[in-house]
């Protein structure tokens, strides 16, 4: 017991005991605090650099023309062309993926939260987790193989891409919906059941209604997760310079693939003195399309927040 610090026996000693902490401990606390702050700064650095690059390099061509025109008949260093066809393709394909994955995902979540017990529920939970980890390119290969068997070699079309994206979306939708449904207090279910409301109506009219804000947010998160997918779309949808609004036939362009292709097109060899030719036009379009893509994702985020605010139950006072 001799190692313990002295017991203060006077007010002075007590005052000392209350004002002094071992300097070594203080130092360590400060060092760790600095490290933690540093880690955060370190993470913000790439984010800022990335946003800055995209803004600086992408804003130049970001205008109505870019958003409303395709790349049809655009070649070389022409100061023309836009991403309308790619935006359309992205919206259509992601839309279809959403259409496929949300009902399935929601029903599975309902199953897990409201009905699931026993081995099946455990298996579903486990394999949904496993599915979260499927690499996107593998999902692309899966959709490609599936349609290859169904349709033959010339199977590239928007819907194949939508299926690939749906495989990636479903587990995210399930996870987030499950979480949201579990957040609905059991008290509300019981209140409804105790009023003599059958279970399915309780689920539809009370549980889903209460959770709708969270559910929308979850779906938006899932969309944001797949809207930037590139590799599976290269495999399943291909690319096109023209507008194609039929997801069931023909190549389509999507924004991420557009970014990749424009980057891949590289510099243009302009004849010296040709003012109408911009050597870096392809990179410029790539950055602008990247900006468009990021804005689209942020827009989704904003919509999600708005919807969530609109539908969320008024919290207790």
């Amino acid at each position, binding site marked *: 017991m001799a190692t313990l610090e002295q017991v203060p026996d006077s007010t002075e000693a007590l005052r000392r005991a209350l004002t002094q902490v071992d300097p070594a401990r203080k130092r360590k606390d400060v060092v760790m605090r600095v490290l933690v702050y540093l880690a955060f700064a370190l993470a913000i650095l790439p984010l800022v650099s*990335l946003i800055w690059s995209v803004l600086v390099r992408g804003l130049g061509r970001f205008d109505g023309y870019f958003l409303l025109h395709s790349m049809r008949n655009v070649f070389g260093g022409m100061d023309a062309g836009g991403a309308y066809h790619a935006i359309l393709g992205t919206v259509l394909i992601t839309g279809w993926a959403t259409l496929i994955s949300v009902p399935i995902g929601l029903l599975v979540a309902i199953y897990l939260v409201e009905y699931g017990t026993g081995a099946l529920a455990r298996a579903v939970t486990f394999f949904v987790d496993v599915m979260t*980890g499927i690499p996107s390119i593998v999902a692309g290969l899966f959709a490609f193989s599936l349609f290859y068997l169904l349709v033959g070699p010339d199977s590239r079309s928007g819907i194949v891409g939508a299926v690939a994206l749906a495989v990636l979306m479903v587990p995210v939708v399930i996870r987030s919906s499950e979480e949201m449904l579990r957040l609905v207090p059991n008290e509300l279910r019981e209140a409804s059941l105790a009023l003599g409301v059958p279970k399915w109506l309780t689920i539809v009219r009370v549980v889903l209604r209460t959770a709708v804000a969270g559910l929308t947010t979850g779906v938006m998160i899932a969309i944001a997760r797949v809207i930037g997918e590139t590799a599976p779309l290269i495999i399943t949808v291909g690319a096109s310079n023209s507008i194609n609004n039929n997801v069931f036939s023909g190549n389509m362009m999507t924004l991420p693939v557009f970014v990749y292709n424009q980057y891949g097109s590289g510099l243009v060899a302009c004849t010296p003195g040709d003012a109408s030719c911009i050597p870096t036009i392809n990179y410029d379009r790539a950055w602008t399309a990247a900006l468009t893509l*990021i804005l689209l994702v942020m827009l989704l985020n904003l919509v999600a927040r708005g919807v969530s605010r609109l539908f969320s139950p008024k919290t207790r006072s």
Partner: protein
Amino acid sequence: MASPTLTSTPHPAAEPTPPGASRAKDRGMDRGFRYLSIASGVLILLVLAAVAAFLVVRALPALKAGDAISQDVGWIGAGQSLWTVIGPLVFGTVLAAIAALAMAVPVAIGIALFISHYAPRRLANGLGYLVDLLAAIPSVVYGLWGVMVLAPVLQPVWDFLVRWLGWIPLFAGDSNGNASNPPRVLLTAALVLAVMILPIITAVSREVFLQTPRLHEEAALALGATRWELVRMAVLPFARSGIVSAAMLGLGRALGETMAVLMVLSPGMLYSFKLLVASQQQTIAANIAAKFADANAMGVSALIATGLALFVITLVVNMAARAIVARRKDFSGAN
């Protein structure tokens, strides 16, 4: 109180068993709804089985072809079989992912601690959102940024590493004793990957840190612990398994990431630990994306076989991640 539906409440003695048509319909709906949701659960299992099955079926020709495959598939050298190329691909994939993980985990833990235990509450939410924003940026944009903005910045750093730390095999230079120029090397790709997986690791660990029981935190504080001692005593021990699973999730992501690697890394098919030399390693996902367009039937089969390998690796990693952390208890218990 004159509502007809209510005044028609039957006489008590008869009541507990009202046969009415609407009750029967409700029961039918109840059962139908239940079956529908169970069927969806089964569907999920089927989809996953289908993914595995399709991959296996389409991969079989390449797996069975032996070294005859090199005649059909350009990127498999003469006399080699699929197995001899899957090895380096798996190696490259794992190496890139681990390098990314090694860089991302400490930083992610720092960020998560910052948000959960250091930043003022009001700031923390906004900052958390900012980090989540990193997750929302499409990977192709990361690729673009990595190759056009980040890589030039990294060149002098990599040169420095080779010059002063070249004696460590990982940082060895090429046969001229330099870091490759331009730096289309594994460490660059891994750094981009690290930035990409940062948000997911941060998000999961932040969640776990925030769940540290207040009881334990207050116990530490009441014993006179400083902020850091609180973290070390109560937060980190509690969160250990959560951090591991967060890292595993990040690992899974890094293993499967395609575009960033495709755009940043100069590929090679070697078992090489040199992180700063180009054309040494390649990842499975990037290889598929690079080779898929010009693959013939056997080539597609070979690529799908590598995809199968990737599927298995990520499966194992994710399963391990899930197994490490017993799933959180239901939030929803009443009473």
